[in-house]
C-alpha cells in the first residue's frame, strides 16, 4: 500500500506526460486525485500497526498530513480541468506532470521513516513545484520562479546539513545506521545534545524556509502572487504542510531527547515574528494574491507557535494544518477566479467582485472570514484553543501577543478584502469572458463546507489519529 500511494501519481504523471489531448490530461489529474484519496483512506486503517524499523509507512502524524494534502490535491485536481480549459494557450504537459510528481513526493515524505529519505522527498518537491510557479511564462513569474528555486534550494540544503548533524549526534552516541525516526526517539538518551540542538536549528531554518516562516519566507509572496491560483493553493496548503511535517519529525526526536523546551522557545519566537512580519505587509496590501501569501506566512507562524506553546496547543496546531490548507485552497482558487475575471489582481482595478463573479466573490469573503478565525469554521477552533492553551499554560504574554496580532491582521486584511469584494466594478476595466461556472466553483464550495464541518464535528477515527500524532510530538514514538 505504501508504494501504491507513491507509484500511483508517478505512473499517472507518466501517462499524463504522454497523453496528447489536453482535455484527457486534465481529467487524469482529477481521477488520480480521487484514486489517491481512496487508496489513502484504505491505507490509513493501519496507522497504529506500523513496525518500528520500517523504511516506509504511515503513522498518525504522516497519515494526518498526507490526508490533508490528498484532500487538498483532490480539490485542486477537480478544479484543474475547468481552469486549464480557460488557458488554452498554455501547454500544460509539464504542469500536470509536476502536479502529480508533487503528490507522489508528498506521499513519499509522509511515509518516510528515515530523515534522509524525508529530505530527498522534500527537495524533490521543491524541484517539482518550480515549473508550476513558471506556468504563466512571463517576466514576473520567471523572477518569482528564480527566487523560489534559489531560496528554496538554499533552505533545503541547510535542512540537509541539519539532518546530517542529527545523524552525527546519533553516531556520537554510538548508534549506527539505519536511523529511523522511531529508533532515534527510542534511543534518544544516547544522542549528543550539542549536535542535536545544532541539527534542530539547521532543520528549523531549512524546513522553515520551505514552510515560509519569517524572515525566511521572502520567496513566498512572489511565488504565490505570480503563479496561478491552483498552484498557490497547492503551495500554501500542500508544500508548506510537507515541510512542516519534516520539521515536526525532527522536533519529535528533539522532544524525545528532553530538549523540547529549547526547541519550543525558538518556535514561539519564529511564530510571533512570522505573524508580526505578515502583519506589516498585509496592511494596505493592494495585491490580493500577495495578501494571501502573507496570510500564509502568518498561518505558518501560528503552526509553529502552537507547537512552541505545547500541551493542548500541539494538537490544535495539527488541526490548524488541515484547517489552514482547506481554507487557503478556497481563498487561492477564488482569488484565481477573480484574477481571471478582471485580468488584474491589484486593488484600484479589482472592486465589486461580488457583482462580477458572485460565487467567487462570496467564497473569497467567506474564506477570509474563515481564515481569520470566525466560528464555526475550523480555523476558529484551532486559533481559539491555541490562544487558550497559551493563556492557561503560563504563556500569558504570548497568548496576548497572539491575540493582538490576530486582531491587527484581521484589520489589515479586511481592508483589502472588502475593497475587492464589495463596491462597483470599475467601468474602465475590460471585462474578460470569464464567468463563474459550477466547474470553477463547486470544488471550492466543497472545501469550504469541509472546513465548516471540521469546525463542528470530527469523525472519531480522525480524532484518534490526531491524538496519536500529538503523542508522537510529545516524544513518544
Amino acid at each position, binding site marked *: 500500500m505504501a508504494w501504491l500511494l507513491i507509484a500511483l501519481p508517478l505512473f499517472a504523471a507518466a501517462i499524463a506526460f504522454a497523453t496528447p489531448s489536453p482535455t484527457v490530461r486534465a481529467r487524469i489529474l482529477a481521477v488520480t486525485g480521487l484514486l489517491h484519496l481512496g487508496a489513502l483512506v484504505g491505507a490509513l486503517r493501519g496507522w497504529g500497526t506500523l513496525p518500528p524499523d520500517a523504511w516506509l509507512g504511515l503513522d498518525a502524524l504522516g497519515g494526518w498530513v498526507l490526508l490533508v494534502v490528498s484532500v487538498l490535491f483532490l480539490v485542486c485536481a477537480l478544479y484543474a480541468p475547468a481552469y486549464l480549459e480557460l488557458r488554452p494557450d498554455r501547454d500544460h504537459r509539464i504542469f500536470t506532470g509536476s502536479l502529480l510528481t508533487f503528490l507522489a513526493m508528498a506521499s513519499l515524505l509522509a511515509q518516510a521513516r528515515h530523515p534522509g529519505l524525508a529530505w530527498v522527498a522534500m527537495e524533490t518537491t521543491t524541484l517539482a513545484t518550480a515549473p508550476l510557479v513558471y506556468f504563466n511564462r512571463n517576466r514576473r513569474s520567471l*523572477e518569482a520562479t528564480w527566487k523560489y528555486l534559489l531560496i528554496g534550494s538554499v533552505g533545503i540544503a541547510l535542512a540537509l546539513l541539519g539532518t*546530517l548533524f542529527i545523524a552525527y549526534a546519533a553516531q556520537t552516541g554510538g548508534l549506527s545506521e539505519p536511523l529511523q525516526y522511531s529508533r532515534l526517539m527510542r534511543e534518544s538518551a544516547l544522542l549528543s545534545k550539542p549536535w542535536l540542538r545544532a541539527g534542530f536549528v539547521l532543520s528549523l531554518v531549512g524546513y522553515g524556509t520551505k514552510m515560509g516562516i519569517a524572515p525566511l519566507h521572502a520567496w513566498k509572496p512572489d511565488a504565490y502572487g505570480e503563479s496561478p491560483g491552483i498552484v498557490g493553493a497547492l503551495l500554501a496548503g500542500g508544500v508548506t504542510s510537507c515541510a512542516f511535517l519534516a520539521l515536526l519529525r525532527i522536533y519529535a526526536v528533539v522532544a524525545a531527547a528532553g530538549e523540547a523546551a529549547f526547541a519550543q522557545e525558538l518556535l514561539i519566537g519564529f511564530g510571533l515574528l512570522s505573524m508580526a512580519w505578515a502583519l506589516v505587509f498585509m496592511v494596505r496590501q493592494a495585491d490580493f494574491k500577495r495578501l494571501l501569501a502573507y496570510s500564509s506566512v502568518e498561518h505558518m507562524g501560528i503552526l509553529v507557535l502552537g507547537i512552541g506553546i505545547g500541551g493542548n496547543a500541539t494538537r490544535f496546531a495539527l488541526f490548524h494544518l488541515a484547517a489552514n490548507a482547506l481554507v487557503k485552497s478556497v481563498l487561492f482558487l477564488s482569488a484565481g477566479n477573480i484574477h481571471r475575471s478582471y485580468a488584474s489582481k491589484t486593488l484600484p482595478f479589482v472592486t465589486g467582485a461580488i457583482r462580477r463573479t458572485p460565487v467567487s466573490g462570496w467564497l473569497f469573503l467567506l474564506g477570509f472570514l474563515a481564515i481569520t478565525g470566525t466560528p464555526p469554521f475550523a480555523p476558529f477552533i484551532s486559533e481559539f484553543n491555541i490562544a487558550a492553551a497559551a493563556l492557561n499554560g503560563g504563556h500569558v504574554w504570548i497568548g496576548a501577543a497572539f491575540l493582538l496580532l490576530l486582531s491587527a491582521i484581521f484589520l489589515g486584511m479586511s481592508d483589502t478584502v472588502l475593497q475587492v469584494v464589495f463596491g462597483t466594478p470599475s467601468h474602465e476595466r475590460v471585462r474578460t469572458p470569464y464567468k463563474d461556472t459550477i466547474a470553477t466553483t463547486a470544488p471550492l464550495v466543497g472545501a469550504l463546507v469541509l472546513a465548516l464541518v471540521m469546525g463542528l464535528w470530527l469523525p472519531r477515527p480522525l480524532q484518534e489519529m490526531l491524538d496519536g500524532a500529538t503523542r508522537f510530538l510529545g516524544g513518544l514514538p
Partner: protein
Amino acid sequence: MLHDLLIALTMLTNFTLVATHRVQKSIQVAAFQGVLLGFLPLSMGLWRHTHVLLLAAATILVKGWLIPFLLRRAMRQVQIHREVNPYISYTLSLMLCALGTGISLVLAHNLPLKPGDAHGLFVPAALSTLFTGFLLLVSRRKALTQVVGYLVLENGIYLFGMLLVEQMPLLVETGILLDLFVGIFVMGIVINHIRAAFDSTDTLRMAELKD
C-alpha cells in the same frame, strides 16, 4: 593525514572563489573543489566499502564534470564572462570569508566530536565552505555566480557528510547527489529563460516583485 591536506585545499579554494572576477574561473574552482571532495572519502581510508567507492566516483563525475559542464554551457548561452560590480567589494568579500572561517572555528569548538574521531578539521571546513557559498550568493549579482555559490554551499554540506559516509545508506546518498544535479540543471534552464526575458542575468534587474 592526506584528508587534512585535502580539506586545507578546500578551504583555500574558498578564498580563491571569493576573490575571483571571472565566471569561467569560479566554475573551474568550484569543480576543483568538487573533485577534492570526491577524493576525500578515499583519503580517509575507506577503500573497503564498495558504496563509498561508488559514491566517490559519482561525486567526481557529477561535481567535477557534469555540473561544470552544465554551468559552462549556460555561461556560453548567456554570454557572461565577468562578474562586475558585486554588492560587496572583493577585498571586503575576502575579509568576510575570513570572518566566516573564524566563526566556523568557534562554532566547531562548541560541537564536540565523537570520542576518538580524528577528523577535527571537517566541521570548521564544512561550515566555512557553507558560509563562503552564502557569501557568494549574497554578494554577487549575476545569476550564474549565484548558482556557483549554491554549489559551494552544497559542497560544504557534502564535506560534513563525509564524516558519516561510512554509514550513510546509499539510497540517501544517491538521492542527495541526484537532487543536487537536477537542481543545478533546473537552475541552468531558468537562467537561460531569464536571459531571454530580461536581456541580462543581472539579478539587480529582477526586483520587480516587491512591497
